[in-house]
């Protein structure tokens, strides 16, 4: 997986990313998520994959594949 980022236009501040992968995501003063600088390449880590799958706004995207939600997006598993 390429570099990940939080799309500010989609993010609505559910903070699931931070709850599931605090080592990769931080939350700003208004509650919106962003990737901690230096952690853009953690997209393959288990916690980060969980965050991607659980983000209600599908706001965690992959840079190489712009505009498409990051992987695992549509998978209906549990």
């Amino acid at each position, binding site marked *: 997986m390429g570099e990940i980022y939080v799309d500010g236009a989609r993010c609505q501040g559910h903070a699931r990313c931070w709850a599931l992968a605090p080592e990769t995501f931080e939350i700003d003063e*208004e509650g919106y998520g962003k990737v901690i600088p230096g952690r853009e390449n953690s997209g393959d880590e288990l916690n980060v994959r969980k965050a991607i799958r659980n983000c209600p*706004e599908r706001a965690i995207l992959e840079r190489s594949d712009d505009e498409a939600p990051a992987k695992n997006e549509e998978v*209906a*598993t549990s």
Partner: protein
Amino acid sequence: MSTEAERGIADNKPDFDFHGRALDNIFDEYEEILAKRPVGHSEKYGGFWYIAKSEDIFNAEQDPDTFAVGPSMILPSFGTDVPLIPIDIDPPAHSDFRKILLPMFTPMNIKKLEPGMKETARQLAEEVLSSGEVVDVSAKLARPMPTIIFSRLAGYPEEDWPIFDRWIDEIIYERTAKPETAYAAGRELNDYFDRLLDEREKAGPDAAKDDLIAQLMKAEVKGRKLTREELLSYCYLLFLAGLDTTAWAIRSALWYLAGNQKAQQQLRENPDMIPGAAEEFLRTLSPVQAMARTVKTDTVVQGQELKAGERVVLVFGAGNRDPEVYEEPNEIKIDRENNRHLAFGGGIHRCLGSNLGRAEMVIAMEEFLKAVPHFERANDAEPWHGVGPLTLKIGA
């Protein structure tokens, strides 16, 4: 122009409802509509189209220009016809109002409240334990906990708390059966906040107070203070959104655990599983089963035409059991990992209190499981939904 019959209104689901006793068997209803008629028309509450599939609900929430919240997201109304801020406000004004309180509800800010929440939950759980063998934990824990936590955050004086449950019961739970009662209670609630705001104004800005009311009173939108009407509307909504939902969420979690000893024991032994379990209870037993929108421009969902001006209900509770999204959607699995659910809605109106609601739910479960070594249902007739009694047999 297509006729009603051509558009399928005539033979739709005229009785589809998502309130009160209709919730008793709603999960069977969801299964049926998800399989057979994911968009359909009901005659209830003046008529509305329901949208049941997760993806369709998501898309509607991402498109507030087509699916607006005005005149109100709340159907039937919460004892008032005044648009409630921010829930009933569309862009562009919506974000100005919402921004005022966003910083108060970040997870970091909610974390600061956690020691107080734990203490409150612990005390309430111990009172349950010392109240005998059969106890109504809705009255003893699920309802008082959010009343105490949220009232402190909001700035409602403690001596006023005893009246809150009645207002909630009348405005939220009797609004279909007795709308006049709901509106009368709504007027009482509005007058209450009018008096409270008068008192706060008289007392002047108090540096020690940083509660929600203080934030609202000092906030500015577009360079001006909020009017009294706006303050009243915001206070009214926060009261109804902040207390009842969380009480239901806590009650429904305890309802489930009381009927499932294995899950109960698992969480008692592994408290780190509680946050994940809370997500699963929110997905399957959420206090907000549906919210309304109004179609702004003609559109089509699942092949069904929806016309400008028509009311639409996004059935979060059905979307949360959509088999295209969840494996075995009707099974409550406390360790479910992929749980992107709709319990807090989404898009620009995402529940402002989601971090608080979650924290209260998790802490209530943690402290209750810690204090009470065993509990089971004492009355199987009590439904999964609402904030009515939940009588449990409390045991050693």
